[in-house]
């Protein structure tokens, strides 16, 4: 949706200094020139809508691109901060939304570490005051002017990535086992910041509309359950209707989570029945928090959205969105950190240490430091540094 993306832009790079923009544009241009093999148009190119943003500018979308050559031209001419492409296929991708003639759309899931309620978050989140621009470790109010209008920036965290990977694995299990998606049609990309984008191509779900995708999202998140589905009837509950550990789908997963083992099952069922119907609803909520897949449902049900193009740089971090061939081994802070190593002097104000390419950076207390371009870009993109 156009509005959502513009919202991001103003939040992100709206007030960036000219010298910082110049630096990032040079770094990005070099990347797009030297790594053209990484950023390629997706299949069925001419049916897709493309869009891009430049630093300190709004979104330009409703663009159609023919091939890799045209894409390169766009990148080199405009040096965008971000490049996007639709998961939807249209007859006329460059016309206004109403006239595009929507045909179908790949199924897309967004898993973001910030939505996982992780306890590590407060240790690597930085607050930037919207009022006085003071930068501090995570806080509720600005330590200088006490304002509550704070912008939060998070820096690299291994735990966040590992937890996101766990969610991706859970998602893939539901997609293949329950929904019959062929594994080869699932592609996992690192988003370029703190999460993963999971694409499902050529599935039976291509033609589903927004409402249907919303129900599919609820299924995947283990949401909207009625107790009866798991055997808990309102009146005269029957032990035999509760799920077994060897069942497929959510009933099986529920059993494994709640009963743990076959021997514990009868006792726990009696307990659940004794606690009653409404208490079971609470149990379902708790179980959902644990075994449900934490996707962002808004992304999955939006069939007109444009997504960061694989291979392009995420201007929230300077890292690239790239395909993960081996999810478990994948290290985003190494493999998607592709901007160059040239040294650059910056004034950094980053109160939390972070690691990129196995190298530690920070903490920096408003000090002038010389760092490689990729680390400078990382901090400048997060408003935590500026070119000296």
């Amino acid at each position, binding site marked *: 949706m156009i509005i959502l993306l513009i919202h991001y832009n103003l939040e992100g790079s709206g007030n960036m200094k000219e010298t910082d923009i110049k630096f990032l544009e040079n770094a990005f241009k070099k990347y797009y020139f030297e790594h053209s093999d990484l950023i390629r148009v997706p299949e069925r190119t001419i049916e897709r809508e493309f869009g891009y943003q430049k630093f300190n500018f709004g979104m330009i979308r409703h663009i159609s691109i023919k091939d890799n050559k045209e894409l390169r031209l766009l990148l080199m001419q405009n040096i965008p901060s971000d490049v996007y492409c639709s998961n939807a296929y249209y007859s006329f991708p460059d016309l206004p939304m109403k006239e595009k003639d929507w045909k179908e759309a790949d199924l897309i899931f967004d898993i973001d570490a910030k939505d996982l309620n992780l306890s590590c978050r407060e240790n690597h989140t930085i607050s930037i005051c919207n009022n006085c621009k003071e930068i501090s470790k995570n806080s509720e109010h600005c330590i200088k002017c006490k304002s509550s209008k704070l912008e939060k920036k998070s820096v690299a965290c291994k735990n966040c990535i590992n937890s996101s990977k766990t969610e991706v694995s859970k998602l893939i299990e539901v997609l293949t086992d329950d929904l019959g998606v062929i594994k080869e049609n699932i592609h996992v990309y690192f988003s370029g910041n703190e999460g993963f984008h999971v694409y499902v191509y050529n599935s039976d779900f291509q033609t589903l509309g927004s409402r249907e995708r919303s129900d599919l*999202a609820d299924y995947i998140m283990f949401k909207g359950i009625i107790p009866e*589905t798991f055997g808990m009837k309102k009146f005269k509950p029957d032990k035999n209707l509760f799920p077994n550990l060897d069942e497929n789908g959510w009933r099986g997963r529920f059993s494994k989570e709640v009963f743990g083992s076959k021997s514990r099952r009868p006792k726990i069922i009696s307990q659940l029945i004794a606690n009653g119907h409404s208490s079971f609803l609470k149990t379902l909520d708790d179980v959902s928090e644990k075994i449900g897949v934490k996707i962002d449902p808004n992304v999955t049900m939006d069939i007109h959205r444009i997504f960061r193009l694989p291979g392009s740089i995420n201007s929230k971090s300077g890292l690239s969105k790239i395909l993960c061939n081996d999810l478990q081994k994948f290290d985003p802070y190494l493999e998607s950190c592709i901007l160059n190593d040239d040294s650059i002097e910056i004034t950094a104000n980053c109160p939390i240490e972070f690691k990129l390419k196995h190298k530690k950076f920070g903490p920096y207390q408003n000090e002038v430091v010389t760092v490689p371009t990729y680390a400078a870009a990382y901090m400048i993109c997060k408003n935590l540094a500026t070119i000296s």
Partner: protein
Amino acid sequence: MLTLGHDEITRYPFLTDAGQYLKDKGFSLSQFGTDPVLKISVEKAFNRIVVATEGKVYNSDLIDGQASKPHVIELEVFSFLLAIVLIKLSGMSTLVKRFALAEARRAESYLKEDLGKASSQSEIDLIKKIIFELSGIEVNKKDDFFTIHVSDYLKQSATFHEREWKLINRHVENGKVFLNSEKIIRLLRKEIGVYISSKINKAPVPEMIPGLETEVKNLISIAKKFTPIFVTTGEYPPCIKHAINVLEKGENLPHSGRFMLATFLLSKGQSVEQIAPLFKNAPDYNERVTLYQLNNLAGNSGSGTQYTCPSCQKLTTQNLCFATSECDNIINPLQFGRKRKYERN
């Protein structure tokens, strides 16, 4: 077109080629207006429509769903075909919807039965073919259940409001949803209705048949009763009240919540300038951005599309629904407090 036996023709008369059927039986439409014997079919057809407008299912003369005598078959099929002719002559579209729904429900009960008792491969194949003709959906039998593709299921169930129909409350395995015969047919009710109404809509409008004027006139006056007028109380639904509350407290309302609030108020006729101040307390408030976004939603700028308020179902998924009993099973917040009144002649 399927090749059907007598029982199937009477149970599912909409699967026949109407014109061909009459021709095969050696009749023309004009005979029904004058021939006293054939007039019985007209009366039956008229009743079939009236029953449908009362929200009931037409009770046929079939015994256990089977035609005992040949003339019963004819009466069953003629009354269906003539009902369509009468509706066409009346030109009242509200009758099409109601008649199609009632006939769909009638067919539904037969389908349930046929599907439930089909045991031989040929019986299963025939009913599968009928379902496919009606809905374009492939149903397969697996042990005691019937399975359909998850995507087919979702396309149908997405319009259902009862939570039991949410995919999470179904047995799903390997891309298939498992259902019993009753559920599978209930799921397809709308498709059957659509099939029947499209057949009616596609049928040509005949010239007035002498002798049928009274029936047609009566149908027109019945149909006129179904033009609803709406009255609203003007009170905001709980989801909107909640969103306003959050903003008033200076707490963060997610983007989806702001979208809901703005589109709701825009639909209720408020202007961008009236709505913008509501967002003043938001932690990330920026007047320029807010006005820009509101104008986009209102269709004043950007693509020119005017966005509408999301459905209750979507809001539930987004954790924005705070339904109370007053919501009364509405499907969109815009319907809150709206009462339907029918004109009485």
